[in-house]
């Protein structure tokens, strides 16, 4: 029995798990910049957690992202709430609220 046969058996005989393929094809292999710029960190697919996985932990930390080390669900909710607050503050700063109240008066 070859290593290939053994591996196939171990893998249930089906196609490779998508997670294993993504991890290798998006995060491993030779990185060379072609002519067409592609930023794999832009992939929002499979939630931000996948982005954090395919960026290495160190790279993510450099970007100031480390909340995956805590509870991802709580952290994500907190992140979203923070975003909403920020959006409201930005809207206020842009005078959107002021504009609305002027129409009403």
């Amino acid at each position, binding site marked *: 029995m070859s*290593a290939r046969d053994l591996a196939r058996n171990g893998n249930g005989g089906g196609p490779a798990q998508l997670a294993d393929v*993504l991890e290798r094809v998006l995060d491993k292999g030779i990185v060379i910049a072609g002519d*067409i710029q*592609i930023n794999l960190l832009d992939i929002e697919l499979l939630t931000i*957690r996948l982005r954090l996985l395919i960026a290495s932990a160190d790279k993510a930390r450099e970007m100031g992202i480390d909340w995956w080390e805590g509870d991802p669900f709580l952290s994500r909710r907190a992140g979203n709430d923070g975003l909403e607050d920020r959006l409201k503050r930005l809207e206020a700063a842009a005078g959107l609220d002021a504009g609305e109240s002027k129409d009403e008066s």
Partner: protein
Amino acid sequence: MISAAQDTGVYVYGVLAPDAPVPSDLETVEHDGLAALVREVPLDEFGEDVLPAHLNDREWLERHVRAHDDVLEAAAAAATVVPFRFGVICHDRSDVARLLGEHAELLRRDLVRVRGCEELGVKVWYDEPGATAPDEAPSGGRAYLERRRDDRRRALELAAERESLVADAHDRLARCAVASTVNRPQPKELSGRDEQMLLNAAYLVRHGDTRLAREVASLHAEHAPNGYAFELTGPWPPYNFVGEDA
């Protein structure tokens, strides 16, 4: 537009030695003793303006990521291949040749490093037994605190046990391999499994060498009764063993 819009690009999958067999539906660009494995791709699929959207289209990404791997797997079954990461796209073949020239040293080093080898993946899963619920309500504050302390100590012991089991297993597997690397365990959201992944490692082994696969089987037999599962994947093109950091 002033000039006719270019509607194709050249997608580079990886690099082969120049005399290596090439899968039938692919081409090579040869330069400086290296052969890039390429395919012409439409820019309405791979152009800079559409890629960000496509990369976030789950179906598109899965299809093309699997295709990338399939091409490299077919090439690797027949010859030594240095796999590229997804998405190296050039305007034309002369740009591919320039790329080969610029990175010739690294590519040649990796061709030597992975020659005659394939990558196998090993994951160790742990099926955590349900937390032991207290049989009775704590009788008093002191008893409760003592139980909490005992539980915490037991949990730490178990975690240390798991860690040392996994480290030993990795050592045994690494002895069957030319090279090895340990990656971050995949989170459950990505693995899609309820079990906890304790080890996510890759091993570079010689073609036809079954020692690692057999070691995985015996590790699994040893530890399955205690809730561990050893899973072998591959063979893969040697993604984990090429590049600057390898």
